[in-house]
C-alpha cells in the first residue's frame, strides 16, 4: 500500500444503514464457517489430519504385506560337512524358503547378532547338527522349525501323520485389515485432542477467547461450533481412510457406513471432551502440548493401534479395555471387519460415552475464557 493511500482523509462514519437483524444462529454459523476456513487454510492441519494417516497406512501396509512364503536366511558353519548340509537343504521341498550360506564362526555369530541370519547350523559330524538361535526372536524359532523339518525330511524321515494346510490371506484377516481401523481410531484421537485442546489454548494465549467473551457471543455456540467442525472433519477422515483401504488394499467393509460414522462421531466427541479438559486451564501452548502427549502416549501403545493388546498380560487387559481408544478401536474393528451392530457393543460404547461425559463435565466446570 502506498503512502498516498494511507493518508487519512476525515473518516465518515455513517449510521442507520438498514441492516437485517441477526437471528439466533448467526453467531454459530459464522463461528463454524470461520473455523472451517481456518482449518482449510492451515496446510499443517491438512497434512496431519488427512495425508499423514494415509501415508502411514500405505507404508505399514506394504511393510507388513503378506510376503510370499517368507524366506529365512541361515548360516552353515564352514566344516567338512557343510557342503553336505547345503545339498540336503537344496534337495528338500522347502528349498525356496531357505537361503543358506557357508561362513566361518565369527561371521556367523556376527550375522546372527545383526539379524542377517535367523539361525546358525553347526554340522558337528556327518549325522549330527547343532542349531544356534535366540528363542526370543520369532523368526528364528520359525526358521529352526523349518530348517529342521527340511533336513530331517531330506535325510529320509517319513511323516507318520498326514497333514495339510489351508492358507488364509483373504481380505479381513490380513495385517492391513487390522491396521486401518486402528489408524482410524488413532487419527480420531489425535485430531480430537489437537483440534480442540491445542486450538483452544492457542486462542486463549492470543487473548482471542477473551475478545470473544467481550461480545454478546453465546459461549455454548462457540463450543458447539468447535464440536461441529470436528464432526465434519471426522466424516472426511473416516471416508478417506476406509476409501483408501478399499481401493489400495481391497479391504472388505462389512458394517454399514452409517454405524461406522456413528461410532466415529462418538469417538470424535469423546476425545474432543478430553481435549477440552486438557485445555481448560493451560495458558501456554507449550504446557498443553505436553499434557496432550502424556494423555495420548499410553494409548498409542496399549490400545491396539498397530498390534493387538492381547500381547499384554491378562491382568493389564482389564485396564486397557477401559481406555477410550481401546473401546473406539475395538468398536471400529468389530463393525468394519465383522459387521457387528451397535447394540452388540454396549460395553465399548458405554466406555466411550462415560469418558466423554466425565471430560465435558469437568472441562466446563474448570474452563477459563481469559
Amino acid at each position, binding site marked *: 500500500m502506498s503512502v498516498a493511500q494511507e493518508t487519512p482523509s476525515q473518516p465518515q462514519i455513517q449510521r442507520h444503514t438498514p441492516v437485517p437483524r441477526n437471528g439466533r444462529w448467526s453467531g454459530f454459523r*459464522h463461528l463454524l464457517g470461520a473455523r472451517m476456513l481456518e482449518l482449510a487454510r492451515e496446510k499443517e492441519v491438512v497434512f496431519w489430519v488427512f495425508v499423514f494417516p494415509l501415508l502411514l497406512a500405505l507404508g505399514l501396509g506394504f511393510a507388513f504385506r503378506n510376503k510370499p512364503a517368507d524366506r529365512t536366511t541361515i548360516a552353515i558353519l564352514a566344516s567338512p560337512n557343510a557342503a553336505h548340509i547345503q545339498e540336503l537343504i537344496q534337495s528338500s521341498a522347502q528349498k525356496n524358503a531357505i537361503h543358506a550360506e557357508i561362513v566361518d564362526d565369527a561371521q556367523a555369530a556376527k550375522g546372527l547378532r545383526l539379524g542377517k541370519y535367523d539361525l546358525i547350523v553347526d554340522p558337528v559330524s556327518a549325522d549330527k547338527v547343532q542349531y544356534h538361535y535366540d528363542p526370543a526372536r520369532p523368526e528364528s524359532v520359525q526358521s529352526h522349525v523349518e530348517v529342521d523339518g527340511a533336513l530331517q525330511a531330506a535325510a529320509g524321515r517319513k511323516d507318520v501323520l498326514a497333514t495339510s494346510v489351508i492358507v488364509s490371506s483373504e481380505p479381513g484377516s490380513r495385517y492391513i485389515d487390522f491396521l486401518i481401523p486402528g489408524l482410524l481410531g488413532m487419527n480420531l484421537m489425535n485430531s480430537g485432542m489437537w483440534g480442540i485442546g491445542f486450538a483452544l489454548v492457542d486462542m486463549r494465549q*492470543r487473548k482471542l477467547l477473551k475478545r470473544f467473551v*467481550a461480545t*454478546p457471543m453465546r459461549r455454548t455456540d462457540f463450543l458447539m461450533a468447535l464440536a461441529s467442525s470436528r464432526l465434519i472433519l471426522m466424516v472426511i477422515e473416516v471416508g478417506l481412510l476406509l476409501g483408501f483401504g478399499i481401493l489400495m488394499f481391497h479391504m472388505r467393509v462389512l458394517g454399514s457406513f452409517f454405524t461406522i460414522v456413528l461410532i466415529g462421531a462418538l469417538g470424535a466427541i469423546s476425545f474432543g471432551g478430553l481435549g477440552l479438559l486438557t485445555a481448560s486451564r493451560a495458558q501456554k501452548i507449550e504446557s498443553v502440548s505436553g499434557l496432550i502427549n502424556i494423555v495420548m502416549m499410553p494409548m498409542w501403545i496399549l490400545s491396539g493401534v498397530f498390534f493387538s493388546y492381547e500381547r499384554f498380560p491378562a491382568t493389564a487387559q482389564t485396564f486397557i479395555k477401559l481406555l477410550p481408544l481401546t473401546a473406539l478401536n475395538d468398536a471400529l474393528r468389530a463393525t468394519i471387519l465383522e459387521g457387528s451392530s451397535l447394540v452388540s457393543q454396549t460395553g465399548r460404547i458405554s466406555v466411550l460415552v462415560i469418558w466423554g461425559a466425565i471430560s465435558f463435565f469437568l472441562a466446563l466446570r474448570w474452563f477459563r475464557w481469559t
Partner: protein
Amino acid sequence: MPAAVECRDLRKTYDGKVEAVRGLSLAIQPGECFGLLGPNGAGKTTTIEILEGLLEPTSGEVSILGRSWKTNARELREYIGISLQETRLSEKLTVRETIELFASFYTQPRSTDEVLSALQLNEKSDALVGKLSGGQKQRLAVATALVASPKVLFLDEPTTGLDPQSRRQLWDIIRAFQGEGGTVLLTTHYMDEAERLCDRLAIVDHGQIIAEGTPADLIERLGGHHVVEFALSGNGHLDNATWQSLPSVDSVRNEDGVICLNVREPHRTIPALLEKVDQQSAQLERLNTRQASLEDVFVNLTGRHLRED
C-alpha cells in the same frame, strides 16, 4: 440520564497480595472522551477490564449506562465495543471475514462495508489478517469493536507501538465516533494522545486516581503554564530556594542537574534568571522555554516521568 460509565471505590487484589486497583472512582458522561493516563503497571488495564465486565472486582460498584454487569451482562455486551490491549486475531481469516464474524454476534450490527470504509480497510478487505501491518491490525481491532454499533467504546492502549501516521489515523476514527455521539474510555501512556483526544482525563498511579480534570485544567493546576528549563556549569551550584525566589515562579524541580521552573510569565522570570546566573559567574549550558504539558503535571505529582523505560 445515567452516566455512561460509573464506578465507585473499585478495588482489585490479585491472589490476596498484589493490589492493582486501590479505591478508584470515576464517572464518564455520555458523549465524553475520557482518558486513563498513567505509567505501565499503574492499574489502567485492570480498571478498564473491570469496567468492561471481563474481570470481577474484589470490591466496589460498576454501572454502565445505568445497568450492572451482575444483572444485565448480555444486554450490556450489545451496547459496548471493546479493543483489548493486545489481541492477535486469527491470521488465517481475511479482514472482511473477521469483521463479519464479530458482526454475527450482535443482534443489530453495522454493515461490514460501512465499517471497512470508515476504518480505511477497503483495500485490505480480502487480505489475510496475518499479512497486515501493525497499524492495519490495530485498525481491524477497532473495527471489530465498532461493528457492534456501540454506545460506549473501550480502548486499551489503542496506539501503543504504532507509527505516528497510524496513530493519527486512529485518532481521527475515535473523534469521528465521538462526533456521532459515542462515549469513549481509553487508556494511554502517551501525553499527546491524552491532550489531543480526551475531554477529561484521570491520572492513575499505583491503582489510584491522583488527579482528574480536563487537560487544560490539569495544566492550570500546575500554577505556571510555562516551563523554563536550564542547566548551569562552572561553580554555579545554587539550591532550589534561590530559583523559587525569582519573580513569577510557581514551583521548581531539579532533574539530574536540569532545573525546571513552572512559571506564569516567562518574560519576567528570564531576565531575573540571567542576572542571577551572571552574579554567580556561572555559565548557562542551555536555556529552553515551552508550554507546560501533562508530562509536567505527572512529574509534579509523582516526582517520576510517565515513561521510564
